């Protein structure tokens, strides 16, 4: 292949990547209103939760994980020990470990830098969209990383712009409106839809009950005792249920 052929391949290769990137940006358009709403809510909750404006902006840009940020807010407001706040954020983020393991086969041949970049921009929304397209067989055959980068870039821009709008708007609303309560309500909105099966309902109930019982433990350690109790209860039930044959298996013709 001469210089000309190599050059031509480079150009068509780049065009293909650009096309995959654009297709990714289009694929997420329908879930952008959801990302926008969550962005605004996190922004308002951060400033109303007591973060000074520059810190709220810094947190949004560097952490970019609404649930971990919302979970940290009540602990920051209560002056909990720093390691407790960071560990709580870590536990809230543990679901990303599962996502990351599920994505790896699709990106195994990329450089470490690209895998790290895709990981940084991966969220609940973008992961779910990627896996849905993978199952339907509607991912592009090549340049999947460019497609996912397109998905993630639109999600990131939307979320960040809306978070900034929420931060600025929230900082202008008087404290008497009680908007700091939106942080708690947003956590309820995260947990509510997740309570869709018996193990997770039992786990959440056990965690909540234990949290009330051991609330007096120093350094907010009760939070971790409660979380571990809930995780143990939910996992135990999940593993037991998955061993049993489904209840309606006998009646199915």
């Amino acid at each position: 292949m001469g210089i000309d052929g190599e050059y031509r391949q480079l150009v068509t290769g780049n065009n293909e990547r650009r096309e995959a990137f654009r297709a990714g940006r289009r694929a997420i358009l329908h879930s952008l209103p959801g990302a926008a709403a969550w962005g605004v809510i996190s922004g308002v909750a951060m400033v109303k939760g007591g973060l000074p404006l520059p810190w709220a902006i810094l947190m949004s840009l560097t952490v970019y994980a609404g649930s971990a940020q919302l979970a940290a807010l009540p602990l920051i407001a209560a002056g909990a020990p720093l390691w407790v706040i960071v560990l709580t954020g870590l536990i809230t983020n543990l679901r990303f470990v599962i996502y990351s393991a599920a994505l790896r086969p699709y990106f195994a041949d990329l450089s470490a830098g690209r895998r790290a970049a895709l990981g940084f921009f991966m969220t609940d929304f973008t992961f779910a969209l990627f896996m849905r397209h993978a199952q339907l067989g509607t991912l592009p055959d090549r340049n999947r990383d460019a497609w996912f980068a397109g998905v993630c870039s639109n999600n990131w821009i939307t979320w960040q712009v809306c978070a900034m709008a929420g931060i600025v708007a929230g900082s202008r609303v008087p404290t008497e409106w009680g908007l700091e309560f939106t942080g708690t309500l947003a956590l309820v909105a995260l947990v509510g839809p997740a309570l869709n099966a018996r193990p997770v309902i039992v786990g959440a109930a056990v965690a909540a009950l234990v949290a009330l019982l051991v609330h007096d433990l120093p350094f907010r350690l009760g939070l971790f005792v409660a979380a571990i109790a809930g995780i143990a209860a939910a996992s135990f039930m999940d593993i037991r249920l998955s061993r049993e044959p489904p209840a309606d298996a006998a009646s199915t013709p």
Partner: protein
Amino acid sequence: MSGPVAGIGLAVVIVGLALTTFLTRTSFLLAGSRLRLNYRVEVALRYAPVCVLAAIIVPDVLLHGAAAFDFSPLNPRLLGVLAAGLWLSWSRNILGCLASGMLAYSLARVLL
């Protein structure tokens, strides 16, 4: 309990949260293919977020800076969370969830 985390402490928290978020998101993407996710571990990881969030929400709603739990049905925060939960049981629209929760909370604060 002391005042809210501020200054250097807040910087440490933000750096810590950013790092742990990055590490969880890139964990298996960066790990070599020798590492595999154990079934039991995966089950536990799946339930961790909801459990820790439930353990944050419930004491926060009932206590919120006070010395004792406020189980009163007239607790505005409890009413707000109940209204938000009711909304969520028939719609996934989070803006409606927040609006109904804030409405119940504000009405309770003004009227009760």
